[in-house]
């Protein structure tokens, strides 16, 4: 099944009181990708990052209405979901293949204001990302570890500063699958993006909000829990040099220390992974059973 998850972020320059259409980050689009229409495509959540309070609006004639759609107040300097936060319970908006979403924001008159959508595809042809659900993670998770990277964001409102996941600390066991539970940042921005071969080169991500650690540290876990599906991305350490972390933020740019909370998985349990030639699967000494407290 071609599951995919994509965070699409954009910015508006000096929107002030005018609801201004977001310009998507370079190479991204607010048009829903072409999918198998019999499988679900979901706006799992969306959020904004404004220096000045404003409004964020997502609408399309194919959603509830094109007049106001999903419209929420954005509080200043707080990168928190305004719709469908994946905490204890949530509700995703169904999307339609190739639908062009109109995403608008208002805010300050002399700043970049940013927004991000997290779109989940149950079956996106030609992508086939590697994702697992919570019961699978509970069953095949072995050890928890953290990767820490430092990302220098650009000040243009686009995703930037991509660094390899092993650029700061290279502690991953060779040719081993890891599930990304979520992550933490030390600086506020719009979104942290993680891109890699294992996610079909689409960017998975979470809000770059340092004050909501309980939400972001297990972001994908929460998504998988509240939406009852496989939304926890899995990558193989053999692809570590091609798995990158970047950040999208406003015109202030900034330097971000990003911690990704990852879980080492039992080898060979998640389909579609790398099977390296030179190193034994699972690093050679991996246990063969796993689990969580009962």
């Amino acid at each position, binding site marked *: 099944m*071609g599951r*995919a998850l994509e965070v699409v972020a954009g910015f508006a320059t000096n929107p002030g009181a005018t609801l201004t259409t977001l310009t998507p980050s*370079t*190479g991204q689009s607010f048009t829903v*990708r072409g999918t198998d229409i019999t499988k679900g495509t979901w706006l799992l959540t969306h959020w904004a990052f404004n220096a000045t309070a404003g409004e964020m609006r997502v609408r399309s004639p194919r959603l509830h209405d094109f007049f106001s759609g999903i419209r929420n107040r954005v509080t200043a300097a707080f990168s928190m979901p305004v719709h469908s936060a994946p905490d204890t319970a949530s509700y995703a908006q169904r999307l339609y293949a190739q639908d062009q979403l109109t995403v608008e924001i208002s805010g300050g008159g002399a700043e970049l204001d940013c927004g991000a959508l997290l779109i989940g595809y149950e079956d*996106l042809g*030609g*992508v*086939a*990302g*590697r994702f697992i659900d919570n019961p699978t993670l509970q069953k095949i998770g072995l050890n928890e570890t953290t990767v820490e990277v430092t990302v*220098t*964001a*650009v*000040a*243009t409102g*686009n*995703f*930037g*500063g*991509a660094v390899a996941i092993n650029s700061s600390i290279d502690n991953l066991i*060779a*040719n081993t699958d890891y599930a990304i539970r979520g992550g933490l940042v*030390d600086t506020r921005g719009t979104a942290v*993006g993680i*891109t890699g*071969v*294992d*996610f*079909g*080169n*689409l960017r998975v991500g979470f809000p770059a909000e*340092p*004050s909501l650690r309980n939400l972001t540290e297990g972001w994908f876990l929460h998504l998988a829990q509240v939406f009852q599906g496989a939304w926890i991305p899995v990558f*193989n350490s*053999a*692809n*570590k*040099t*091609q798995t*990158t972390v*970047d950040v999208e933020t406003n015109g*202030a*740019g*900034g*330097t971000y220390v990003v911690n990704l909370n990852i879980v080492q998985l039992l080898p060979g349990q998640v*389909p*579609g*992974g*790398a*099977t*390296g*030639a*030179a*190193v034994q699967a699972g690093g050679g000494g991996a246990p063969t059973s796993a689990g969580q407290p009962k």
Partner: protein
Amino acid sequence: MTPPIEQDFPAGHPARHDWDPESTEAKEWARQHVHPVGERDFQIDHPKAADTPGNLNHLPVTAGVDPLNPHREPFTGRSPAQVAGLRKLSEAASQAAVESPVLQPIDAEVVNRLLSAKRHELGRDLLTEAEYTDVLKAYHADRAAGVATAQAEFKLSLEDQAISYVQSRGYSLDVATTIVGTEGAEAILKSAGIMP
């Protein structure tokens, strides 16, 4: 050793044998124990009591902010000078930073298989940037060729397009096929403005 003298009531207590309502001790005892307006939340002089001089009840307690040092940066505790210095450094770094490359979506399963084959071929797990690029180039080229073939396979012939057009005017498939056979597909499509 002389045992300590145990008093029945503390100084100033009304039950003491030497109680003098005008004494300092008695006034202090009354201040601490008599509450004419009702039960108190905290005892007299408790640091959280509203009438304790110097209490900190008015200070807002905000996430990440030290209430006694609100001028410091939330969550980091850095001084304003440090914050300004870091901002300057960070701005310079952001100006020099580059935007992330735009990547074409790929089928993770297929590409991982191709990468695996490459690893087997080379006898090592970690591929260089160039080796990755080679694999992805081959993947995109194969995919483009596959898409072109599929497009060619699925492309409607002129006759199919003409039949489809005639059907859209309300004729059944049999009648549409006869009309296209008689009039010619090209002529029908031209008259419909579908073909120049």
